[in-house]
């Protein structure tokens, strides 16, 4: 076998003998166009020596057919006309390699996504398009030359961005496997949104009780370097070798000297709204976000601090921990992998004016209700309504606020947690106030998770919570700030007008407002809903299209805690897999300079977005451009703009592109 393979080693000079394999893809392709006809057509084209069809070429049997043709010496170039290369290009490359053919002598024609799916209803047209795709792929295959893959080492360290429940779990798993983790969190504490929750559905276990131990575990973990109140400012490099710059914002309090006595907080004259309580409570300019914060470091918020110096007085801060001259620090670290777990923002319902949020005091959001219910919240778990601080006797919840909204100002997706959190909050209130009237206005109740349907059924049957199917059209308030609701009960087909004491908007989850900063920093993509895009919605849910960078939790799309933790562990496993290999292959599609043509004009240096090109002094050719292959992404900006045609992109050379174009005409 090995000997045959050695014989088969292809050189660029050998005459191309192309094998064309047209896949039926079940009925995806074969059900629209005639695959045998396509094969016959391909066989009429120059250099095509073998043409075959099969139900699924990606299967073992299909791959074997290709391998046998290679091994028998019938062909030295492979064209598979099937699906998108995103999924199966690696499959066929490996098959070629196993049969002794350089894996870059393979080309794929996507006749499924680009033809039979989009032109499903016009089979004749689809057939013509498929023929074109096959002809172009063959044209390029004719010009293919063997390339060598490059191997780079993987730094055994991971950067985790975001210290919520997802980021924490990822960090813990990776650290336990023995790799270094830099956990970067931009607020002064880890814990994320889960720290704001009182209880979690459907088990009703206390959020803090299960979160706090995790938080301290993270802070104790040997392999985790916890960087709170920090932000990633720059990421360069590539898979296995990312160079990351992290800004450590100044706390203005020395964490070593500080004994966390809290006297400074009492003496601080500045009171501002507490972000953690979402406007329902206050904090001082010097603060710890919440009692269980980790690390429990004090921070001075310089946007609000007036630098009066009272906290720094010796009778206030005995250990002299306050340092107004604290400076931001930049930390540079090298990591092999990155996990993005940046979480979500709560939808701001102010623009949905019909619901009166921000206008009527007794209209609040679900997250605010959570703080009202929280035992360490502003009203220590005894919810009152904002207007008169009285206990509400009736509460209405409105579902899908900002979610499943196809009109302006809303999000089209389902936020996946609101049905359950509203049910949970309603149950919590009903437990303490059995006499209260609770209404949940919904479109559909989506109780999809483990134990969720049971939880919802019990809320309706055992707790007497009233579920009304109908959107609330508008609300107004009376003189006592009670909320008057107008809706329709679509099951009874009756209009409803009712008065409640408190109105809770079950607002959904949104991508972070500054998610764009992350996408440009890491060169990852967003999907149409604004969340970060996974490499494949089903099979690569935590990977991104940038190798070595993974996503997890709500940053990828709305999900509840169990799903977030599952993804956290998935992303951790993916990162570990990469680091455990020690080295990784990178595609050889980078720019190469033809020194004899280059005049050293440096136009390419300007055009390169990745800083991969330098001008060097060559002994033979004088001033010429040189490409750093590790930094080059193969985008082709340099090649397209080179006025001397001195730059080629491997795998996309001028000859190959030209061959495709002429093949088309």
């Amino acid at each position, binding site marked *: 076998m090995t000997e045959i393979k050695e014989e088969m080693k292809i050189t660029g000079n050998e005459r191309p003998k192309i094998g064309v394999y047209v896949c039926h893809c079940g009925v995806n392709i074969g059900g629209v166009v005639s695959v045998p006809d396509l094969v016959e057509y391909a066989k009429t084209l120059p250099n095509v020596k073998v043409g075959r069809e099969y139900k699924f070429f990606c299967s073992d049997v299909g791959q074997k057919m290709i391998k046998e043709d290679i091994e028998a010496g019938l062909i030295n170039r492979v064209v598979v006309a099937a699906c998108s290369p995103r999924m199966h290009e690696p499959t066929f490359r490996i098959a070629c390699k196993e049969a002794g053919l350089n894996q870059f002598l393979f080309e794929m024609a996507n006749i499924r996504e680009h033809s039979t799916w989009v032109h499903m209803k016009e089979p004749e047209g689809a057939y013509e398009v498929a023929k074109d795709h096959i002809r172009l792929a063959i044209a390029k295959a004719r010009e293919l030359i063997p390339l060598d893959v490059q191997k780079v080492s993987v730094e055994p360290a991971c950067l985790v961005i975001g210290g919520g429940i997802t980021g924490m779990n990822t960090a813990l798993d990776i650290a336990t496997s023995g790799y270094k983790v830099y956990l970067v969190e931009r607020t002064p504490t880890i814990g994320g949104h889960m720290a704001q929750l009182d209880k979690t559905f459907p088990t009703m276990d206390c959020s803090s009780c299960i979160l706090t131990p995790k938080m301290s575990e993270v802070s104790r973990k040997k392999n985790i370097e916890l960087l709170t109140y920090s932000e990633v400012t720059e990421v360069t490099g590539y898979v296995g070798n990312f160079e990351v710059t992290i800004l450590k914002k100044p706390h203005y309090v020395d964490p070593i000297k500080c004994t966390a006595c809290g006297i400074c907080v009492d003496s601080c004259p500045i009171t501002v709204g507490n972000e953690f309580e979402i406007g329902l409570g206050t904090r001082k300019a010097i603060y710890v976000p919440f009692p269980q914060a980790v690390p429990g470091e004090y921070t001075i918020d310089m946007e609000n601090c007036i630098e009066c110096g009272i906290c720094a007085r010796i009778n206030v801060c005995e250990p002299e921990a306050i340092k107004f001259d604290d400076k931001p620090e930049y930390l540079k670290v090298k990591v092999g992998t990155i996990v993005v777990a940046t979480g979500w923002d709560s939808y701001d319902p102010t623009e*949905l*004016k*019909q619901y009166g949020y921000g*206008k009527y005091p007794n209209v609040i959001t679900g997250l605010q209700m959570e703080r009202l219910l929280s035992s360490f919240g502003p009203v220590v778990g005894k919810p009152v309504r904002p207007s008169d601080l009285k206990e509400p006797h009736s509460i209405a919840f409105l579902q899908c606020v900002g979610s499943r909204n196809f009109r*302006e*100002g809303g999000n089209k997706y389902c936020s996946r947690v609101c049905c359950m959190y509203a049910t949970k909050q309603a149950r919590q209130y009903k437990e303490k106030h059995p006499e209260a009237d609770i209404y949940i206005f919904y479109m559909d109740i989506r109780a999809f998770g483990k134990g969720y349907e049971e939880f919802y059924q019990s809320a309706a049957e055992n707790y007497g919570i009233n579920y009304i199917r109908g959107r609330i059209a*508008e609300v*107004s308030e009376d003189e006592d700030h009670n909320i008057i609701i107008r809706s329709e009960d679509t099951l009874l087909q009756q209009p409803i007008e009712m008065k409640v004491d408190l109105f809770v908007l079950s607002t959904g989850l949104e991508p972070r407002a500054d998610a764009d900063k992350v996408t440009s920093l890491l060169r990852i993509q967003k999907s149409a809903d604004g969340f970060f895009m996974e490499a494949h919605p089903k099979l690569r849910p935590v990977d991104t299209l940038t190798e070595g960078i993974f996503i997890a939790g709500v940053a990828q799309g709305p999900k509840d805690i169990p799903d977030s933790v599952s993804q956290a562990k998935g992303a951790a496993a993916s990162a570990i897999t990469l680091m455990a290999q020690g080295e990784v292959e990178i595609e050889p599609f980078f720019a190469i300079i033809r020194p004899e043509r280059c005049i050293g004009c440096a136009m390419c240096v300007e055009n390169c977005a990745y800083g991969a090109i330098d001008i060097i002094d060559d002994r033979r050719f004088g001033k010429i451009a040189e490409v750093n292959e590790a930094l080059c992404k193969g985008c082709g900006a340099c090649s397209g703009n080179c006025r001397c045609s001195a730059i080629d992109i491997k795998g996309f050379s001028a000859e190959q592109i030209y061959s495709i174009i002429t093949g088309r005409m």
Partner: protein
Amino acid sequence: MVEEQSRKYGLFLGCVIPNRYPFIETSIRNVFDHLDIDILDLPGASCCPAPGVFRAFHIPSWLVIAARNISIAEELGVDIVTGCNGCFGTLRDTWIELQHDYDLKKEINEHLSKIGRSFKGTSEPKHVAQVLYQDLGLDYIKDHIKHKFSDLNVAIHYGCHIAKPSDKRPWGGECEDPRFLDEIIELTGAKSLNYKDKMLCCGAGGSVRSAIKEVSLDFTREKLTNMKKAGADAIITACPFCHLQLDLGQFEVNNIFKDEIDEPFKIPVIYTTQLLGLSMGIDPNLLGLLKNHDLSGVPPFISIDPFLNIVKEQLVKEEIKA
């Protein structure tokens, strides 16, 4: 600010203004004249046609007639201004729909070609309030204000078609709680009251007035009750049909619902440009603000005398003092 050269608009009257409330037309013409705007007539303009009546029965007919009206302004090379929410709705919906649907535009133009016309989409249909608020701007109008009311509480009624559907209206998607009319009215010193269900329909629209009058007037009763409760000295409208429903409607509500209301309603109903014109120092006669007994056979049905007394008290006396 308006550019030096004068702005020109084609005034689209519609039906209710010339037939029921001609003083709305005179107030628009005089206010715009004071603001250095040229108002051109649209010769041959017909019914817009009314959205509730025509569109509900046959959309293509509705579009063709509306497109014909717009084409008159296109010939003159001017944008359209209308003081009626219904006309605004019909013309603007048509203008937007035909611009976004190539096939529909072609079909409509085939019909129009039979009478030698065509729709191009070059004349934007605008509401009087839109011209005031967006084309001229509050600062520009402010420079023309001469007198201010010191104590006038008004209930502004926007009406429906002026702001809805929000994607075909010029207010940036705002339809639940618009402020543009409030801001124009507040330039006169009048206080715009916040009353319950401010955005509720007057009751007339959608052919409800013609079809089921009692239901229609029940809306009006609700609306009037809320306005009265808030302490309105006058109702300010931006649409002649709403104007009719709130004016004649008071009369009708007082009869039909006399057992359900405490005392008969008699709140003067004033059109936006009438109030604005007063503040700009225009002769009330030119704004159609006449004593009821001076008019015969012409509305208003509800006496505006209490409002004229306020004007006398707050604007005229102040002017004499000055």
